[in-house]
Structures are given as structure tokens and as C-alpha cells.
């Protein structure tokens, strides 16, 4: 057990560090470049940075050479990402494409399609999004209603998707739709990739409870998709979607701050009953709880990385990450605001500790407990897939989709 690189890994890390030092600014104690810029400017810079990385051979280094990668072990991609995290570089637009769409294209698209689409994806030239969730199909993804029917060499898509991040700036998307409502719900689905500039696609941003708009609704009206852009067989859409969601779960990042560190900083500068809040035992107990959770997740990730770096398949332990971090973020945020007592409601950054980070995340954190699988769905997954407990009684299997109760 050690935390050191192998000599080869150490050499690679050194190389990466040097390249980053030459090409990027170190992170400083101020909002990151992605937070300083609006989305449009951010995207321009992020494309440039992604392209520079790709040219230097650091983007998706573990992808095969024919897909635009370097065919190197996964651990080198991870080492690159670890090092990049210390630099203030514009990111955040390509995660879904590289984390979910790319791998699914690599598995299901033709060689020709892979050669056409994957390299521009790696270089940030084309942005991808994912079109699964629907207003009536959130946790129950397979309950989706968006229809598609065959018309000559094309499919025609009608319906609505929701919670699509980046739809408005995406070039392509992956989509799952229902081709036959008379089949059981999991069997009537077919999977495509789709040109987001196709006629009949209408995109509307969703305003979130914190006022931001990270997601969109996407409406499809007679949108034509060539059959050649089908991924997997007709009726195999659920299997493809599930493979994609598995990639999503691996790709889920850390929750953003605040965490125990920010609480410590706040508590050191805040008085409770005339003493620094950091001396207060109730505050200390909370900090300890969050430290244990935070480090628990960090070291769990280290176990996963160890497996990856040894070429083994990681265990199921990573599945706990989001369910722990999302609630933690909400609790930390609420606690931070409480520590500021009556003043804790103010959101003006110029008046508040940590530029009102706790207040912002109080409003943002509820979304993290829902997006990418609710707390409840994730606990189901842990119980069924990791612990092997029996599934729920299902009333929506083995009956035609059109016969499943919907309450409306």
C-alpha cells in the first residue's frame, strides 16, 4: 500500500506538469475562469483549451489511436486530470460527450462513423449532449414517451426531452425513443445519434430554483434521423441506454465546495457565544462528520484508481459517491448559513464570507440530490446491484407499454 506513482507514472506526471506549467495558469484564490466568464465566452475558450490538450496528446489519452486518443492506460488520463485540477483552465462543456457519448459511439457506431465523429469530439470541435429524460420519465427512464417511426431510410421523431445539459450549444446528441408502444416498455425502445441542428428541434432553457439555467427542454417535431445513425438494433435501445448510464455513473465528479474545509475556515472567523465557533463542540462534531465522509469518498476513489491503474475492474464501491456528497453539500450549506445566524440569509457576495458560497449552494444543492439519479434510485441500485437484494414488485413489465398505468 503506497500512494506513489510507478516510475513510469511518475515520469508521465512530470511531463504533464511541465506541459501544464507552460500552457496554463495555476489556480488562484478567486473564482475560476469558467465562473468568471459567461457561457458563450467560456465555450470559445474551452474549445481552444481542449484542442490544445488534444494536440499535445493529453485529451482522452486512453482512447484508441483511431478514435483520436493515444491508446495509453486509463491511469495516464487520470494522472493528467489530477494535475490539470491545479490549473485554472476552462472546462465543463465536454464531459457528457467524452464521458457518455464517446464510449457509446465507440461501442455501437460503425468504424466510419467513429472516425468521423470521435476525433472532433476529443478536440472540442463538436459538442455532444444526451437526450434521455422526459417530463414523465425521470427516475423511470424506460417509461419515456418520445416516439419514432420508420419512414423510408429515415426515422421520424416526435416528443419532448428534458434536463438536457448543453442542448443549445451541442452539435450532436444521443437519443432514445419508443418505436413500438405495443411492446413491453423496455423492449420498444431504439437508440440514435442525432444532428442537433436538424429541422424540427426546438430548445428551451429550464430556469432552476437558483435562477440559473444549466439544462434545457428539447422538443422534437417530425425530426428526421437517418437509419444509419441508429446505435444498436431496433428494440435494443434500453440496453444501449443502460450502458450509457453506467458510463455516466463512473463520470460523476465530486460535489463542488463548500465542504468541511470551508466550514472550518468559516468557523475560525465566526463567533459563537463570544468564542470562535471552531472551538464549539457542536461545530467540531459536524466538521469531523463531514471530514470522515469527504475523506471516505476520496479514499474510495483511490481504491477505484488503484484497480484501474492495475488494469482491474473497479468494485461497486464508487456507487456511494453521489448519494453521500449530494446530501453533504445540502447539509454543509445549510449549516454554514446557520453559523452566520440572522445574517446568514444575505446572498450579496460582497457582504458575505466566502462570497456567499454557502447561500449559493443552499439553493443549488437540492438539484444534486436529483440529477443523475435521485437519492432514492441510487439506494435502490446499491441494494439491488451491489447487495443483491431482490427487485421491487413490478407492474410495468411484460405488459404492453400502452397498458401501463400513468395516472392521467
Amino acid at each position, binding site marked *: 500500500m503506497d500512494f506513489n506513482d510507478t516510475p513510469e507514472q511518475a515520469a508521465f506526471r512530470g511531463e504533464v506538469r511541465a506541459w501544464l506549467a507552460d500552457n496554463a495558469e495555476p489556480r488562484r484564490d478567486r473564482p475560476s475562469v469558467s465562473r468568471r466568464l459567461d457561457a458563450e465566452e467560456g465555450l470559445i475558450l474551452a474549445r481552444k483549451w481542449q484542442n490544445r490538450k488534444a494536440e499535445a496528446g493529453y485529451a482522452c489519452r486512453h482512447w484508441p489511436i483511431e478514435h483520436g486518443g493515444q491508446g495509453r492506460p486509463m491511469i495516464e488520463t487520470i494522472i493528467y486530470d489530477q494535475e490539470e485540477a491545479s490549473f485554472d483552465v476552462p472546462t465543463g462543456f465536454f464531459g457528457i460527450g467524452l464521458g457518455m457519448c464517446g464510449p457509446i459511439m465507440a461501442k455501437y457506431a460503425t468504424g466510419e462513423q467513429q472516425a468521423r465523429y470521435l476525433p472532433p469530439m476529443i478536440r472540442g470541435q463538436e459538442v455532444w449532449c444526451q437526450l434521455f*429524460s422526459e*417530463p*414523465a420519465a*425521470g*427516475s*423511470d427512464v424506460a*417509461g419515456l414517451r418520445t416516439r419514432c417511426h420508420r419512414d423510408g431510410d429515415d426515422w421520424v421523431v416526435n416528443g419532448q426531452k*428534458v*434536463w438536457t445539459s448543453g442542448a443549445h450549444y451541442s452539435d450532436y446528441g444521443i437519443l432514445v425513443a419508443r418505436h413500438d408502444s405495443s411492446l413491453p416498455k423496455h423492449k420498444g425502445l431504439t437508440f440514435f445519434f442525432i444532428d442537433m441542428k436538424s429541422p424540427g428541434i426546438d430548445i428551451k432553457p*429550464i*430556469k*432552476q*430554483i437558483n*435562477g440559473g439555467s444549466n439544462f434545457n427542454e428539447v422538443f422534437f417535431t417530425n425530426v428526421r434521423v437517418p437509419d444509419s445513425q441508429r446505435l444498436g438494433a431496433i428494440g435494443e435501445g434500453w440496453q444501449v441506454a443502460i450502458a450509457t448510464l453506467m458510463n455516466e455513473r463512473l463520470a460523476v465528479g465530486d460535489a463542488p465546495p463548500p465542504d468541511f474545509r470551508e466550514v472550518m475556515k468559516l468557523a475560525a472567523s*465566526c*463567533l*459563537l*457565544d*463570544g468564542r470562535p465557533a471552531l472551538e464549539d463542540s*457542536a461545530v467540531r462534531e459536524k466538521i469531523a462528520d463531514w471530514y470522515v465522509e469527504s475523506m471516505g469518498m476520496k479514499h474510495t476513489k483511490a481504491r477505484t484508481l488503484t484497480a484501474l491503474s492495475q488494469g482491474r475492474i473497479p468494485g461497486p464501491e464508487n456507487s456511494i459517491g453521489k448519494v453521500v456528497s449530494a446530501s453533504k453539500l*445540502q447539509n454543509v450549506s*445549510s449549516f454554514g*448559513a*446557520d*453559523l*452566520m*445566524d*440572522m*445574517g*446568514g*440569509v*444575505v*446572498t*450579496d457576495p460582497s*457582504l*458575505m*464570507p466566502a462570497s456567499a458560497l454557502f*447561500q449559493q449552494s*443552499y*439553493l443549488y444543492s*437540492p*438539484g444534486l*440530490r*436529483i*440529477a443523475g439519479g*435521485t*437519492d*432514492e434510485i441510487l*439506494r*435502490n441500485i446499491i441494494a439491488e446491484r451491489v447487495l443483491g437484494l431482490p427487485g*421491487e414488485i*413490478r*407492474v*410495468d413489465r411484460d405488459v404492453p407499454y400502452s397498458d*401501463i*398505468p*400513468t*395516472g*392521467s
Partner: protein
Amino acid sequence: MNFDFSDAQKALKQQTRGFLRAACDTTVPRRVLENGDEPYAHDLWRQIGANESPGIAIPEEYGGIGFGYLELCVVAEELGRVIAPVPFSSSVYLAAEAVLLGGSEEQKQALLPKLAAGEAIGTFALSEGPGQATEANLQTTLKNGRLSGTKVPVPDGDVADFCVVVARDGNGASLAVVDLGADGVSREQVETLDPSRSNARITFDGAEAELLGESGQGWELKNRVFDRAAVLFAMEQLGGADACLEMAIGYAKGRYAFGRPIGSFQAIKHKLADMYIKNELARANCYYGAWALSTDAPELPVAAAAARVAAIQAFHFASKENIQTHGGIGFTWESDCHLYYRRAKLLALGIGSERVWKDRLVSGLQEEAA
């Protein structure tokens, strides 16, 4: 043993609920939330004034209708249920109570009738920024009848006509009344988690102010005002928590996933059962607090703290788990879930955080035991 509201009080509750259901559906707090130029719902506030609700517990001799505090509790619960975007709590629970407890006869005569009619808005300023305000760390000073310092956030401070300010003078902490339209007062709206209730940053630069109660007794007086306000805040929180539970039940019954209503899944069922449990614990503590308030019982400090703590916990839990029950929809601006989530935090911190009230609760128990 009659641990229940009277028939007349229940009738008042029904009447208030009916009035507010019509006059203040969620489009009203949403309008104030979304519209920076409307710090509170003027039309609603006018109607509440016309109903004489602000004066419900103010004695008739000061222009109120002198019903009593159980009646005020009933109104508070209903205002909380509809998260009414009006300066009721500042004007009635804080300013009027401070004047009633600490004011001279002259001050009462001058200020209470206007508050009772809803013609003037009063408020109360303690906080001076992020962090717990204590008698020892007060920066605002009162010298020779002049007030200097900055208070933030002051609820409704941007729209109030006058403010009771906790300040330090030669004898310790004192309360002072200041006309917010006077020279030496500057104020600006300050953004908070819940823009459906406005808050201000007020700077006093030698503004003329008048002592309320005795010099040096301000902290104790503030505590007594807050004890009383705690029960009323708790009633509002209870109403809000009940509204969240109701929303969550409605959604869980109507939303289908996997071919069944999501309310048929134990994860949702037990979440809502937990909400109900917390709400019932809060209700029982709130009713007891209401009794203690209405009878000015020696149990008031502990009863008020217990009501406050239980109600903070209930509304916090209900408002966040209501979003969770709604799933993605609950995270959208268009959904009403966030109106309650915001209000829950605003009320939770309004007169001091859960932590402060827990401490006060245990101190009260220690005194009772001593």
C-alpha cells in the same frame, strides 16, 4: 384540560384561511420574488390591514381589536401556510411587541394605532452582518439620542416607517426607536435567499432616536420580544411545513413511475411519514407555546424555544424533502417548491438560528431545575 383552540378561534382560522386562499395563492409570493420593484404585496397588505389583522392582539386602547395571542397565532399559521409576502412579522411580532413591552405610554399611543391599522410598518434591527449578534459585540451606538452604525439584514427595513434598534450606549445594550425617513438614515435593499420578503441594509449616521424602555435593559427586553416572536414565527413555520407536506402528498399520489403512483413506494411513503411526524411534533410544541404566550406564563421562554426549534426542524425538513419528492420538476423555477425552501431558511434565521434557540431552551431548563 382543554388543549385546543376555541370554536371562535377555529372559525377565525377558517375565515383567515379562506381569505388568504383567495387573496394569496402562490402567484402572489412569486410575483414579489420575481419583481425587484415590489418589495411586498401592497394589495394583500392593504386587505390584511382592512381586516384589522395586525391589531388582533393589540389592546383596544391602542387602536387594536384586543382579541389576544391565540387569535394572532391562528393568523400567523395561515400567513405561513401561504408564505404571504407582507411585512406582518416585522410590524406585528417584532415592532408592536417591542413597543408594547418596552414603550412609554406616549410611545404606545404614538406608534401602536398605526401598526394596528396596517397604516405604518415597523421593524426591528439587531443583526449587524454575518455572525451571531451578542450584547458584547454590538457595534451600533446610541449617544445623546443619536444612532450610528449599520444593521443588516433588517427585515422590511427598506419599506418600514420606523425601526426598533438594538444599540450600545453607556449602560450596555438599549433599544431605540428611529424614524427611518429621518436625516442620517440611509438604506438599500439587500439580496437574500428569499426575495419574496424584502430585507435591507440600514446605515445610521447620527440619526435621531428615542430610547425604548430603560437604558442598559435593551438586551433583556430584546430577549422578551424574541421569546414572544418565537412562538409567532413558529406558527408561520408550522403553516409552511404543512403546506409542503400537502404539496408532497398531492404530487406523490398523482405522479406515476414504473406504472404506479410514486406515493406507493416506501421510500416516498416513509419520507412523508417523517414529514408528518416532524410537523405533528412542531404543532404540539407550537400550541403549547401559543398557550404560554397567551397567558404570559412563566413557562414562556422554554415553551417558545421548544416551539421555535421544532418548527425550524419541521419546515426545513418538509421544504427540502418536498423538492426531493417532486424530483426534477421540484428543481425548476416554475415549481412552487423553492418558494417554501427559501422561506424556510428565511424564517429559520430570522430571529436567530436553531442553535441559539436550543441553547436558550436548555438554559431555561437549567433555571427551572435550579
